[in-house]
């Protein structure tokens, strides 16, 4: 019947095991901070936190997919639609943009032309250092 069964982000006992590789999470963290020091505890927490985020995002996107009852398959568009309407996922807008058809984009471009002509469509500004 209609109601899709959604498991709430799977009941798990609290534990100290991580499935994502700590070393990789450390590299990711280092890429966005100026200090080198990351304690083991912080690394553990960030890894757990990222795992939780994957579960959260997948679960929510699946709800989106089953609401549209097309099938039981979660597609990219379900993710991008979810990102578009969730305030706490705003930071993903550029990473998971909604796809649009070319003719629609061309229409948008045409409409935009009135609004100002300084939108940069050329890639002339590439600086090449030796």
């Amino acid at each position, binding site marked *: 019947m209609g109601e899709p069964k959604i*498991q709430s982000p799977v009941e798990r006992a609290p534990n*100290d095991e991580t499935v994502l590789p700590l070393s990789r999470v450390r590299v990711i963290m280092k890429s966005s901070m100026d200090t080198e*020091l990351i304690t083991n505890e912080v690394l553990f927490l960030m890894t*757990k936190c990222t795992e939780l985020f994957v579960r959260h995002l997948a679960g929510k996107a699946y709800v989106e997919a089953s609401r549209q009852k097309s099938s039981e398959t979660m597609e990219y568009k379900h993710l991008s639609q979810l990102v578009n309407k969730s305030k706490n996922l705003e930071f993903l807008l550029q990473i*998971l943009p909604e796809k649009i058809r070319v003719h629609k984009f061309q229409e948008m471009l045409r409409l935009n032309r009135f609004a100002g002509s300084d939108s940069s469509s050329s890639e002339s500004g590439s600086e090449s250092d030796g």
Partner: protein
Amino acid sequence: MVERIEDLNLPNAVIARLIKESLPDSASVSKEARGAIARAASVFAIFVTSSSTALAHKQNHKTITAKDILQTLAELDFESFVPSLTEDLEVYRKMVKDKKESKANKKDTSSSENANASSTAVAEEAIE
């Protein structure tokens, strides 16, 4: 150091497993969606790290702590994550503590049999 952008990717197999675990058995996920979730996870980690770093700096701390991360999550509208992460953290801290204690115990019991520098130093002190 990040030399290539791929260094920021999380392993696909692990991401796939995490996704599978959080969905009903009948669900399937397109390859494109799986890749997108993996990318989103990397960006999420970067986002939380830089926000936590900013929070730590605001409090004149140089390094981020677990507390900074939990507080940042709440500020970023992910407070639903905080309770279970707090529990995980407690288990982790207990594990670290237990490890330390068992190590200390081992040292105590084995000091008589292994004649390394530290135990002879202790012996010398005892003689004095």
